């Protein structure tokens, strides 16, 4: 027979052993997930390859180049055509992946009384910021939206979206739109290669992950004549986007919220 003291000692030791064992297992999994792609891995056929853990897609918007033609809407037209984004003609029901807002709305609270005349009115392109800490993904009850660990894209699975719109409330950038009605009749020219959405589903920019998978740049980047949109891997120090960020003054939207946006604005 063991007495009470011995029993408590044994139970404590057992609990400690169980907890440390689980920690060790978790740490091992985490270190495997962070493994960079080896040459051996890269040599495998694409479908057998495990995703590279170190990539982080991001975009730099060079406002000096963008503002050369303030009326230009090439990026918006290309994106919305590519992804079957409807035009409902009613701002209350608007569905948008990339759009323009006056600079003072895009960077609300950043202006002051003596800033350059007209700066606040300049149309600034906005899109999903593909945050490192996305508030939308955190609130999604069905995991219909989540941040892809392998490349940092905040993805959407429209099959899974139940239309609760928590993400719309959570996103501080207004990057998400809700389909209040069937969007199909409001798409000028339906592209068969990409699905439309249906009533009751939230949608947003996906950094053209379907094009990236084919090795193509995002549609907006390709469409920009002024080359104002620069897309690349932020984890690669030699990438064009990293070089631009290193040598220019840049802004992100609402940095104080801690979402760590991955769309950067090269300031004029």
């Amino acid at each position, binding site marked *: 027979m063991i007495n009470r003291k011995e029993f408590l000692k044994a139970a404590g030791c057992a609990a400690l052993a169980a907890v440390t064992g689980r920690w060790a297992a978790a740490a091992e999994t985490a270190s495997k997930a962070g493994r960079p792609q080896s040459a051996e891995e890269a040599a495998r056929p694409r479908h057998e390859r495990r995703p590279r853990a170190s990539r982080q897609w991001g975009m730099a918007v060079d406002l000096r180049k963008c503002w050369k033609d303030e009326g230009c809407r090439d990026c918006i037209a290309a994106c919305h055509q590519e992804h079957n984004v409807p035009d409902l003609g009613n701002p209350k029901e608007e569905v948008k992946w990339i759009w323009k807002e006056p600079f003072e709305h895009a960077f609300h609270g950043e202006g002051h009384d003596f800033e350059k005349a007209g700066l606040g009115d300049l149309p600034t392109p906005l899109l999903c910021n593909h945050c490192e800490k996305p508030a939308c993904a955190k609130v999604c009850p069905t995991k219909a939206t989540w941040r892809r660990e392998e490349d940092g894209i905040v993805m959407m699975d429209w099959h899974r979206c139940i239309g609760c719109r928590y993400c719309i409330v959570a996103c501080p950038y207004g990057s998400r739109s809700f389909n209040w009605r069937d969007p199909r009749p409001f798409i000028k020219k339906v592209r*068969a290669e990409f699905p*439309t959405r249906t009533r009751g589903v939230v949608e947003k920019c996906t950094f053209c992950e379907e094009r990236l998978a084919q090795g193509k740049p995002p549609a907006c980047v390709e469409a920009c004549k002024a080359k104002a949109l620069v897309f690349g891997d932020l984890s690669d120090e030699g990438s064009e986007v990293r070089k631009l960020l290193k040598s220019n003054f840049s802004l992100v939207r609402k940095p104080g919220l801690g979402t760590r946006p991955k769309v950067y604005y090269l300031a004029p």
Partner: protein
Amino acid sequence: MHDTGKILAGLAVFLALATSPLWYASLARSSAAAPRLDLPAAERRCVLPREVIRASHMQLLDEWRTQVVRDGQRDYVTPDGRRFDKSLTRTCLKCHSNEKNFCSRCHDYAGAKPVCWNCHVKPEDIK
């Protein structure tokens, strides 16, 4: 136990009525004709054998959906080594280009109402 006869008679009537669809169908032999599908002329082999794809194409599509959307894995290799893009619109519909005379005929017959086409675009929607 005065009403045994009535109870048994009542039960017999109830059973007869409840099973009426079964014996009616077997007596009348008038079940709907099996659907005739428009099969692709150029390609005779689907990604999996006919029996497998007929019985479990929905599970395959569900797996493809999850692998493409969530895991970014887009290449499908058939058991006999052929390679395909995991895509309803770019792979399945390339051969089965007529949704009405293929998908719908069978789904109507089976009383299945898949919601694929609420979002995915069938070829006939474009024209």
